């Protein structure tokens, strides 16, 4: 029973990471109807920025905030400079653009920071740990929950958050009330970049930092978003926690760690085949 609880709680801790990435993916999807395949790489690069700052002597939380800001600014820049030019392009072409972005960021990280696997510091004192969760896992859950809460409050209660929601839902009507839709999009990318940075920085102490660290996490984030329903940011977050638990339990009790990635995905696909809109999503009715 103890082992089960440990796997379950540990899964929730990982799930927080997947929830954050899933949220970032859905934020961009809602605004642009595209999946940002490079989301993981953006986060990874920001995590490297944090590492470099820490190694240069910055206190952890200062480096954290700076890396976060870096993630935000680069997110805005990527949207304004690259993504904007493909607004009218066919869907598959945009997918290739995202893949291109993925390759570029990944390769730049490898070039600048080497492909060596490195340790990443955790700011949470060991005393925080308990029987079921390590100190970092507890801290991870805390940080991701705070992040999700702040994002929720931002979208729900601030005028800018409202404007961003409007711009994502109905760009034309938004223009008619004076919202600068283009900049709302860029802001969305910035926020997603910041959230992705947090996810990567939290994950790095566990998975160790290297340019490919986010590949599996992105896949789970993708699965979380779909499981929760791609129209629903909070469904994606919930989906993230569910995926985290499924992954851990599948790995511990069903198949070994080698196949746990595939098994988790299979389970998710089974859910999708039975309920295509995801657990919390809604189907969009299109008129014939």
């Amino acid at each position, binding site marked *: 029973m103890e082992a089960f609880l440990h796997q379950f709680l540990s899964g929730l801790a990982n799930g927080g990471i997947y929830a954050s990435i899933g949220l970032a993916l859905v934020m961009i999807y809602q605004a642009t109807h*595209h999946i940002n395949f490079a989301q993981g790489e953006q986060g990874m690069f920001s995590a490297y920025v944090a590492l470099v700052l820490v190694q240069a002597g910055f206190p952890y939380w200062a480096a954290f905030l700076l890396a976060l800001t870096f993630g935000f600014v680069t997110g805005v820049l990527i949207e304004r400079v690259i993504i904007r030019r493909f607004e009218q392009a066919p869907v598959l*072409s945009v997918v290739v*653009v995202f*893949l*291109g972005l*993925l390759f570029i960021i*990944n390769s730049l990280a490898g070039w600048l920071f080497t492909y060596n696997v490195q340790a990443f510091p955790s700011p949470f004192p060991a005393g925080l740990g308990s029987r079921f969760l390590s100190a970092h896992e507890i801290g991870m859950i805390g940080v991701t929950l705070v992040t999700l809460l702040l994002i929720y409050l931002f979208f729900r209660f601030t005028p800018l958050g409202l404007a961003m929601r409007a711009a994502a839902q109905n760009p034309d009507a938004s223009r008619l009330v004076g919202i600068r839709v283009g900049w709302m999009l860029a802001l969305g990318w910035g926020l997603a970049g910041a959230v992705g940075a947090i996810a990567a920085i939290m994950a790095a102490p566990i998975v160790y930092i290297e340019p490919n660290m986010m590949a599996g996490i992105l896949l789970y984030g*993708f699965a979380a978003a779909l499981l929760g329903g791609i129209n629903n940011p909070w469904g994606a977050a919930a989906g993230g926690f569910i995926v985290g638990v499924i992954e851990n339990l599948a790995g511990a009790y069903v198949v070994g760690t*080698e196949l746990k990635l595939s098994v988790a995905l299979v389970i998710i*696909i089974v859910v999708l085949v039975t309920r295509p809109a995801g657990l919390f999503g809604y189907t969009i009715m299109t008129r014939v």
Partner: protein
Amino acid sequence: MALAHGDMPGTLRATSAGAGARLLPIVALAALLVLACLVPFVVSSYRLLQLTSVVIYAIALLGLNILTGYNGQISLGHGAFFAIGAYTTAILLERTGIPYWATIPIAGAICLAVGFLFGLPALRLEGHYLALSTFALAVATPQLLKFRLLEHWTGGVQGTYVPGFKAPFGLPLAWDQWLYFLSLAFAIVLFVLARNLLRGNTGTAIIAIRDHPIAAASMGINISLYKSLTFGVSAMYTGIAGALSGLVAQFVSPDSFSIFVSLGFLVGSVIGGVASISGAVFGAFFIEFIPNFADQISKAATWAVYGSFLIAFMYLMPTGVAGFPARIWKRLRPSRAVG
């Protein structure tokens, strides 16, 4: 991620050109074929290997184009069928007396069945959900190939060797030249087959399902059957390509069928022009040669250069290389005033 009609070049076009104009593409194609047949005797061994890969990739990409371009079903997992094809050949040659050339159609048949079976549950999935499912298939493939229980057949992590062979009938061809011609022969047959399929009634049905599934269904087209069959045929093409690649590499291992193979196919398909037959050839050249080219530009950040190429190509040619001449032509012609 619904694929819209406007995305695709290469929808059926009625040509009202005269007999003379019709002759031109045939002559060009014939010249190209003659050139292709002469190539093995003039290029280096390494180049020949690269060109053989191009032919093989063209077959694989054609399979993907049929599914994604013409039928609108996105697949990020065609690397799995490529792997099945390669491993089928390897296992059959290792354990049975079946001649190497016969393993190729068998690999195709197996992939046809697997693709069809995968297509059935995939019917319920659209856009991103289908993308994720096929992506999961691609991710799972190397893991399954390494799986302990199948090790006896697959050779596990280390992989299996594929036995070599000589050119038949004592033809004065080196092994790699023979393999090139073998691949080319399969490619020609498969391309002609695809062309006839897509230009006929089946093709119309397939395209109709992509553009207006509800209208297609109300005209009596059995959507489920066609979509699953298309998946099967698409998998068959890529499986045949996989079988050929196994023979060429003389070795199969799980890590040669990572997710990057599937992503590479998608990239090649889109760059070449996803709803075209000729696009498969352009795409094949791209995924074979551009990574090397990028490597020459920068050894340290090869994939950054490659990624930049991808973005640049998509900016200049959003509908792929195959659709590019038509787009330029449209830009250059003076716009007609509509009354």
